[in-house]
């Protein structure tokens, strides 16, 4: 079943064309990794997918419904798509537990007792239940990012967008976040992620997409992409990314 489909998507910021006709398809349980140099358009693509940015051309469909349709409620769209950011963006004025509960309680209007139990279960799963009542700035970067991931999961989204979620972390903290993502992939979470972690992409991706200057230059199964890239630019990028 197709969850998300992008058809010939283009996006401009002023005179700069950031996305130039990108097409992409995500089925349920797919883990698609976007790779490419910084500034190639990976983050913009993710933001377009949950309507944080408006696209200038092409179409985006979620479960077969065009998100460009003026009758679409963008808040409803976003409630079905989780997003995790490079810089965590936890709410500093709320405790860890309140961060996780905010979406379900305030956006989905679910009763907070019920949500609290689920949120505690999620925090237990990532081993942070004992930090539930602390404020995010007392947590390490890795812990904060795991809370941010769990915050999106609390909405029970059909799709998770992850924008270079380990790029702002200390090298020693990257592992714990990737472990959680591995687990999610194993459980069949549908994910679209922009990443610089090539080893991780190779391991969990069902599909790897190389983006260069706003176009999909090459895509395929991870083994094909990493062991036998066809395009010169892909080879060059991968050899640099490995070193």
């Amino acid at each position: 079943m197709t969850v998300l489909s992008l058809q010939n998507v283009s996006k401009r910021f002023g005179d700069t064309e950031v996305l130039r006709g990108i097409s992409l398809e995500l089925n349920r349980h797919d883990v698609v990794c976007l790779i490419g140099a910084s500034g190639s358009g990976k983050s913009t693509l993710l933001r377009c997918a949950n309507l944080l940015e408006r696209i200038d051309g092409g179409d985006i469909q979620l479960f077969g419904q065009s998100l460009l349709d003026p009758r679409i409620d963008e808040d409803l769209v976003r409630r079905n798509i989780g997003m995790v950011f490079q810089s965590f963006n936890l709410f500093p004025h709320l405790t860890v537990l309140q961060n996780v509960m905010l979406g379900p309680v305030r956006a989905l209007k679910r009763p907070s007792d019920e949500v609290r139990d689920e949120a505690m279960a999620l925090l237990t799963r990532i081993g942070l239940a004992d930090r539930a009542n602390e404020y995010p700035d007392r947590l390490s970067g890795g812990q904060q990012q795991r809370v941010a991931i769990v915050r999106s999961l609390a909405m029970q989204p059909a799709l998770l967008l992850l924008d270079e979620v380990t790029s702002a972390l200390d090298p020693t903290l990257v592992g714990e976040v990737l472990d959680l993502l591995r687990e999610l992939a194993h459980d069949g979470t549908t994910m679209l992620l922009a990443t610089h972690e090539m080893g991780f992409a190779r391991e969990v991706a069902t599909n790897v997409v190389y983006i260069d200057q706003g176009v999909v230059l090459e895509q395929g199964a991870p083994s094909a992409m990493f062991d036998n890239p066809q395009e010169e630019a892909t080879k060059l990028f991968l050899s640099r990314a490995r070193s």
Partner: protein
Amino acid sequence: MSSSSTTETVAPNLFAPRRRQLLSKRHSTALSIVSTVIFVAVVVAIVFWAPGGVTFRHFFFDPHQMWVAFTGNHQGLASVGKGILTNIWMFCLCEVLVLILALGLAWIRISTSPVMAPLRVLATIYTDVFRGIPILLVFIIVGFGFSELNIGWISHQTPTFYGCTAITITYTAYVAEVYRAGLNSVPQGQILAARSLGLGQAATMRRVILPQAVRTVIPPLLNDFISMQKDTALVSILGIVEAVQSAQIDASQNFNDSGLVVAALLFLAMTIPLTRFTDHLIAKDRTRRLAGAQ
């Protein structure tokens, strides 16, 4: 022989010169006591030994006159103590009105919806105009102008009503800008995160932006409110008998300005607790969020 800078064999002297040692932080309590004593002594000495010291003390610090001005008497002296109550309730009323109206104004100014475009222009003009006009002129225009207009209930209000209106109009413009700066200071990532959770614009404002903006806004907001407390004294030009007006009545009847000093002290008694309270709030928030940080 090598002149490399790393071959130095004599240990360098790391001690500060003696004079700076005395001023170091180790002696901070002693130093602050000494400097306070010297400062107070100089001020007292000037007041006592100045050529006109006796007259000065009599005119401004006569305890008997101060007490009479504070309480008022039956020979027609106005009570500064009673007058300050007028300042206090005017201030309290205006503060509440300004807090609410300014938030609305700031909200309009930062809104992005095309529907709000005409309101945005009006809001911008409003803040520009009322931050640009001296408040004294606003008092005169509202206080004397509105009653001249002769339109229904607007023109038949008390001077106190016009005074409060003028203060509210002016300070709404200032405080709206304070709010706007605070709302803009919340990082964009916070808004993106809230919207990504499917929170609407209103919920994002209420649950994510406002609570964070309040923290940055409190100190500048308090500055404006302290100014506002003092500006309630300006309503005296509309003939309202508040603290300063009372003190002036007393001064012209007694040829003694001690009442003005009483008014000054009463204003200080209002503003200083407010300042201390805000500092306390800020410090409490700081410790709460940094408590036990690793």
